[in-house]
């Protein structure tokens, strides 16, 4: 169980792992995530299941090295085993059918978006996808997105690849140009999702965002992932992870996600 079948780097700090986890593979749906604990001392971290193969009994995870536990994961190779993986967790993403949809992925959020994009395609939606990153290296899964989208638009902040600008700039242009859009699915850093929600708020364009909150257990036990949605407290792990982007209090969550920022640096030095 939990053996890494294959591993390749998508960028210096981004790894793609195919892992043998047959019980999870046969149950996973778009939007599901797993909690991963790499070794006895690691944190439990939530990772979206990017893809699965029921025949092979594998799930695919994409990991960006940001903290100590994720950096450790990137030191693992094929045939290494991950100590603990549990899932699939979270509610499957509610997918529209036969609509005109735009998917927006920022940075490694594109990995979390990918299973939703493939799900949307299977449901007969017309799918346009915008993916972006700070720089060319951080634009991932372009080919995969092309295979499930009717059109793919790429942006980079520094203009090193695709359009110079942000995914939100591209989204605004597509909204202005038409044809009419029925729904937007956006996954990326919290400020990006906030900007997408702000861009679609005025026209009440349905916008689904995925909350990457602090989590310990991932099953509704700690309450650490609480998010204010339309003034009510929700747990991202069991009530989400997706919510109506127009009802999420992003600022609150952006602030609280900084809780351990300095401690994470301390942990990092011990790597």
């Amino acid at each position, binding site marked *: 169980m939990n053996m890494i079948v294959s591993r390749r780097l998508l960028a210096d700090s981004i790894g793609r792992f195919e892992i043998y986890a047959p019980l999870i593979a046969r149950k996973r749906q778009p939007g599901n995530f797993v909690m991963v604990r790499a070794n006895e*001392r*690691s944190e439990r971290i939530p990772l979206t299941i990017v893809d699965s193969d029921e025949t092979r009994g594998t799930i695919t995870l994409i990991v960006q090295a940001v903290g100590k536990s994720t950096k450790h994961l990137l030191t693992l190779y094929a045939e290494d085993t991950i100590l603990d993986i549990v899932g699939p967790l979270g509610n499957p993403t509610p997918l529209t059918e036969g609509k005109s949809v735009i998917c927006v992925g920022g940075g490694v959020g594109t990995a979390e978006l990918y299973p939703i994009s493939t799900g949307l395609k299977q449901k007969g939606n017309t799918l346009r996808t915008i993916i972006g990153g700070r720089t060319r290296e951080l634009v991932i899964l372009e080919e995969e997105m092309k295979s499930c989208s009717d059109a793919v638009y790429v942006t980079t902040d520094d203009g090193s690849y695709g359009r110079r600008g942000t995914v939100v700039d591209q989204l605004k242009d597509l909204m202005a140009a038409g044809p009419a859009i029925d729904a937007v699915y956006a996954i990326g850093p919290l400020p990006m999702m906030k900007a997408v929600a702000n861009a679609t708020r005025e026209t009440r364009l349905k916008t689904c965002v995925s909350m990457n909150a602090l989590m310990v*257990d991932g099953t509704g036990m700690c309450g650490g992932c609480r998010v204010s949605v339309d003034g009510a407290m929700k747990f991202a792990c069991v009530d989400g992870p997706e919510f109506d982007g127009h009802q999420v209090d992003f600022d609150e969550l952006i602030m609280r996600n900084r809780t351990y920022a300095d*401690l994470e640096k301390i942990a990092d030095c011990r790597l």
Partner: protein
Amino acid sequence: MTTPSENSTTFRPAAGVNPMKPSERMKIPRQHAIEQTADDRVGNFTEVSLGMTEERALREAERCLECKNPVCIEGCPVSVNILDFIRLILKKDYVGAVNKIRETNYLPSICGRVCPQESQCEAVCTMGKKHDPVSIGKLERFVADFEREAGLFIPPEIPERRPETVAVVGSGPAGLTCAAELAKLGYGVTVFDALHAAGGVLRYGIPEFRLPRDILDMETERIKALGVTIQTNFVVGRTATIDELFDEWGFSAVFLGTGAGTPNFLGIPGESLSGVYSANEFLTRVNLMKAYRFPDHDTPIRIGKHIAVIGGGNTAMDAVRTARRLGAEKACLVYRRSRKEIPAREEEIQHAAEEGIEFVLLTNPLRIMGDENGWVKALVCQRMTLGEPDSSGRRRPVPVEGSEITLEVQTVIEAIGQKPNPIIQATTPGLATSSRGTVEVDEFQTTSREGVFAGGDLARGGATVILAMRDGKLGARSIHQYLNRDGHARRRPMTAKESA
């Protein structure tokens, strides 16, 4: 002093093991466990109580009046034969004593540490009517520790394996007890747990200074020694549903003991600030993820110089004492009723007071204030007074107008109760639940779904370890009856998929 009537009706000295007269027994003062000093223990996470020496245990056992009608046994939710186990102590047969306990309670070293004896067996102890009750809990712990330290545990004999297998969901006190009882009856048992380690609330909730992890590990190993499989990292309802456990995995019955793991929040302003924890998150970070060893362990915890824990139950005590050990200079407990109504175990309240925990009583939080960076800086509260008794029989706290106080704290931990996790209820059609989210059971722990039984906090909403164990035991008995009823078509045994 003994009256003739007591002598003739309550005691039976002739048949007793102890040759002492009741009046002599009553003269012996209650023996106490050895404890780390408060100064020492606030600097570590090792166990507060070090238990009784053999000498003290024997002395304490001599205090037992060997009542003809041992009411202590009725006071125990699982009816441990207290009289007989104390008599075995008097005969210095400590292993016999722990095995006597194990006949009805498979986790003696845990119950000896975390049971609220003062409201159960010791509350009704005859000695307690005029003197201090016999220290039954400490004696239970003594024999369990003696057996462990001497390496004298022998697993009970298991009857021939029956064809049926049972799935137990949740490896807390209810699930572990149910699994042990079913294994002793010969059933194949798999216990599923969502976390990466077994024990449930005993693992993530109760701190090491009350229940050392080697004790918990040992007790779970002893459950495995009965042939029980413990499957961690498996969320029933997600990894497999209850229906799939029956139809695809081939289980013949299911016991649900998933506890009450979802924390309640007060719903006051400021709960999203950094520095606000549910007690569940706070304790899970420390107990399960070992955040107190950060950065050697990766999971961080953040604790202010001044902290407040809201609540008065055992979880609140555990949280506030943990915060003290993590370095909080001032740790206070904010509780809306008075000292008399605090529901935590008496020993924990005393230990907390010794450790310098400040009890801010008759006080109810109104809002949490934050600084410009979104961090907690204060807890604003209101003073309360006690009014008429409410439905629980406790006097209802009533706000005192214009009595706001502000506690300067950087961490707020809410320990105001938990409710059952909703995953299983939401994924199991036909499983009846209450408005509080608990699974409804009858007096035999039977749910509305055929072959599905439940107990512990999942059915009760929030109770004690020993009541969960009682439910687990009763659930096992009901499953046994269910699987042996007339006309019951036996299901096939475990499939290859299950054993993989």
